[in-house]
């Protein structure tokens, strides 16, 4: 992106600092989205400088940036939305967690997704527990009905762990399936 050069040093400082704030706000976005946002702000500032009457660069620049508002506030919805789009198209867990966190305030549905993803995370934890503590971790059943999925210490001899060595592969598969379903679900709520 071609930056605007100012003659006035203070104006240059204000411009640089404003762009630092934009960059910080949009740091989680993809490179392409970042470029788009930066270029649009840059273009707006440039056009403003050409069109606003007056000679003082500082005055003109301040007028423009005040009109645009605080990047942290103005860009918040855009960042949340773009991040969600990126997350649901890449299926990358890092993007998904960032997206959900950024969207938490914009609706209860994202809180529900956050909880579901946390459940998913616990599947992973269980797989580690199974390695550390194989005897007491698994799917426990008593007389054909579900007792627990997780780590259980019991003296009840009727409670049986049924998955055995298949626990880790099954959990891995379920986690993967759940992950895909959740992410597709997230993608669908975004389209509405």
């Amino acid at each position, binding site marked *: 992106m*071609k930056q*605007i050069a100012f003659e006035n040093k203070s104006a240059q400082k204000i411009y640089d600092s404003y762009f630092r704030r934009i960059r910080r706000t949009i740091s989680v976005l993809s490179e392409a989205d970042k470029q*788009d946002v930066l*270029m*649009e702000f*840059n*273009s*707006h500032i*440039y*056009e*403003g400088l050409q*069109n606003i009457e007056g000679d003082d660069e500082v005055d003109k620049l301040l007028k*423009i940036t005040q*009109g*645009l*508002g605080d990047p942290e*506030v*103005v860009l918040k*919805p*855009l960042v949340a*939305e773009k991040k969600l789009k990126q997350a649901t198209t890449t299926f990358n867990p890092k993007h998904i967690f960032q997206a959900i966190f950024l969207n938490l305030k914009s609706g209860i549905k994202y809180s529900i997704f956050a909880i579901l993803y946390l459940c998913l995370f616990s599947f992973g934890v269980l797989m580690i527990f199974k390695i550390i503590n194989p005897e007491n971790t698994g799917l426990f059943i008593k007389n054909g009905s579900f007792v627990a999925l997780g780590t259980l210490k019991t003296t009840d001899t009727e409670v049986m762990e049924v998955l055995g060595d298949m626990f880790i592969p099954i959990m891995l598969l379920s986690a993967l399936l759940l992950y895909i379903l959740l992410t597709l679900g997230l993608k669908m709520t975004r389209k509405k």
Partner: protein
Amino acid sequence: MNSEFVQKWQSQVKKGTLAFILLNILKDNEFYGYELIEQVRKYTTIEIAEGTLYPLMNRLKKEGLVTSKWVEQESGIPRKYYQLTNVGISTLAEMRTYWDGLETAIQKLTK
């Protein structure tokens, strides 16, 4: 007169019609962001905050009503031009029908 009530009502009306106004501006021409704000100022008394324009344009883009393209400039600082899509054109026509109906009704009421 309850000027506070009027003010609140005005801001609601502005908020509700801004997308309609922007789509109408883009009906015959493509414009870049800064120009769009100037066009809004030219045709209406709405003092549109720059900070609200860009998120709104982004929303219209997400809804598939407008597209945008970067056009290189001699200055080296390109402009992002917005234009209506076909969906945007038909959506605007539908909004127009509603608006005309509303206008007729209000004219009858305020006679």
